[in-house]
């Protein structure tokens, strides 16, 4: 008998989610990061409701209001954070920009995860020639820097199909390019995890129980690779958002009509020294805080996602 046996009737239904949540309650920094991140997600979801102006309406853009300073400098109650070069309310644009940036980041990383996960699992579990082939493909893919691939693809697309088509498909293109360019990162980590896991005895035990290969991969090995995946997931989303911002800054990302955070920073950049600092600074702060919080969360998850470390 286990002498540490807890009294009966006390709910012993401990799940991993609870482990993580209870650990989080004790950690103020992690809780803070989670709250901020949740706030960002909420803002992204509810941008149309929260924004003081509708970005799609015709009178939203009014050049007469261009480059108005924030409320506390002008006393103009209409624009809390001032306006940008096109006369748009900066607060509204930032809310919509956050929504765009997060969507692109999350979708791009989901593509990375799906591609990288499948390839990593197959490569690690089957091994042999397939593994050699897929990993060389990953090496080749990684030898081109993401930004280079993205710039070339987006620039070629823009010139081939013209600006009008590009503006319509910009978001989709960004998601695809950022998604496909970085699959090897997931593939490599997952392959390494699978390699470490597949020789463990519980896999043999599952095989000896007659569990099929596919089920062993998906139900037994994959859950054991979740913690590293979640860590890279958060950091990769942050990276994708930064990459998107950088591309937009270079003029290859989102069009000025529907600016992401990066596009906003870029549009304000030229006015930075003429005194209109707010156009760049507010979106930059929004972006920096988001990335900071996501990195914090990623690190924290890495420390706490191990059920053995969290249990007691």
């Amino acid at each position, binding site marked *: 008998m286990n002498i540490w*046996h807890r009294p009966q009737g006390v709910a012993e239904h401990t799940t991993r989610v609870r482990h993580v949540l209870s650990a989080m309650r004790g950690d103020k920094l992690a809780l803070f990061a989670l709250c901020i991140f949740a706030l960002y997600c909420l803002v992204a979801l509810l941008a149309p409701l929260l924004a003081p102006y509708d970005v799609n309406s015709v009178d939203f853009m009014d050049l007469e209001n261009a480059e108005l300073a924030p409320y506390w400098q002008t006393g103009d109650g209409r624009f809390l954070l001032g306006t940008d070069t096109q006369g748009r309310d900066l607060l509204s644009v930032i809310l919509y920009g956050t929504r765009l940036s997060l969507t692109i980041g999350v979708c791009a990383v989901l593509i990375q995860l799906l591609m990288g996960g499948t390839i990593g699992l197959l490569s690690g579990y089957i091994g042999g020639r397939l593994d050699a082939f897929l990993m060389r493909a990953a090496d080749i893919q990684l030898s081109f820097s993401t930004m280079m691939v993205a710039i070339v693809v987006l620039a070629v697309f823009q010139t081939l199909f013209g600006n009008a088509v590009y503006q319509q498909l910009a978001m989709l293109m960004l998601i695809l390019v950022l998604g496909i360019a970085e699959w090897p990162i997931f593939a490599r980590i997952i392959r390494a995890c699978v390699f470490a896991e597949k*020789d463990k005895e519980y896999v043999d*035990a599952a*095989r*000896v*129980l*007659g569990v*099929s290969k596919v089920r062993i991969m998906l139900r*037994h090995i994959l859950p054991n690779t979740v913690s590293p995946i979640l860590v890279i997931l958060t950091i990769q989303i942050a990276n994708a958002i930064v990459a998107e911002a950088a591309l937009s800054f270079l003029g290859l990302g989102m069009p000025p009509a529907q600016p992401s955070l990066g596009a906003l920073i870029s549009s304000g950049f030229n006015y930075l020294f003429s005194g209109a600092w707010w156009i760049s600074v507010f979106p930059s702060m929004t972006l920096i805080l988001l990335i900071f919080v996501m990195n914090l969360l990623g690190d924290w998850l890495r420390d706490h996602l191990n059920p*053995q470390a969290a249990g007691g």
Partner: protein
Amino acid sequence: MSLLSVNGLSVKFKRRNGDLTALHEVSFSLDRGERLAIVGESGAGKSILGYALVNLLSKPGYIAAGSVQLAGQELTQLNAKQWQGVRGKRIAMIFQDPMITLNPVLSIGDQMVEAIRSHTRIAYKDARKLAIEKLAHVRIAAPVQRFDQYPHELSGGMRQRVIIAIALLLNPEIIIADEPTTALDVTIQAEILQLLKQICLDNGVALILITHDFGVVSRIAERTLVMYAGRIVEQGPTLEIINDPQHPYTQGLLNALPQMALPGQRLNQIQGSMPPLSEHPGGCAFHPRCPYAQDKCREKVPGFVYSGVSTVACYVVEDMLAEFAQYDEEDLDV
């Protein structure tokens, strides 16, 4: 007809300059409900034999020759799909270390339900009921609570019980237990062994117990098979072998038990150690360590003879038997 019959099973490991032989023509049989122990030092090929029976040899290893028949069905010819129907359902396996045999990120219940559902189409509720029933059967307290716990929340003994429960889920005909108690405390060992034996008796399951510990063997197995360097050297009823070991190697093993030495005395040991796979000597593989080794031991592998106690592969025993037979004849002549 016996439940499992193994004939001339050879296992080799692929290597660039010539394959290594890990098992040399192993033959034995197992009846329904019989408890058989396979004994030998590390490297004798016990575990390889266990893995070969369920076709789980890892990569360079392969079955080079021989047959394994389960109730008349040839197992070595099965494809991957057919194996899935045999493993778990007809032959279950229990591994050495319960700390690493359970998947750390799935709850006990998930793992059990998973095992049931990969063989039979059954609703989650029914699978859960069956799993809890089996947990109770291996005498785990509060099985309903345990069902939702994770492996790290259980002690080593408890985990081994869970593993036995998992092995029992699909009512297999044979359980292969590869050193099931080596990783456990001595007190827990006795409990687990008792449990294993009881379960085999209750359900009519045959057991193949792989171990290096004669103490364990004597408590559980009806029949014992002693292995050395990939060969069976002696097999027979456990009690007879323990009371009157025939092969010098079996004698050495039994002599090495701590109980055999007097207090204050050095423990007995067999001189030398098991040769690595690549350096198996010719003739009887045990001859370099055997106190009775003769010239012919170095030249040819001895065949099996029945000594009246057990079946042994040893020239010394063979010669002795021949001598006895001669005396008997002389007695008759007079």
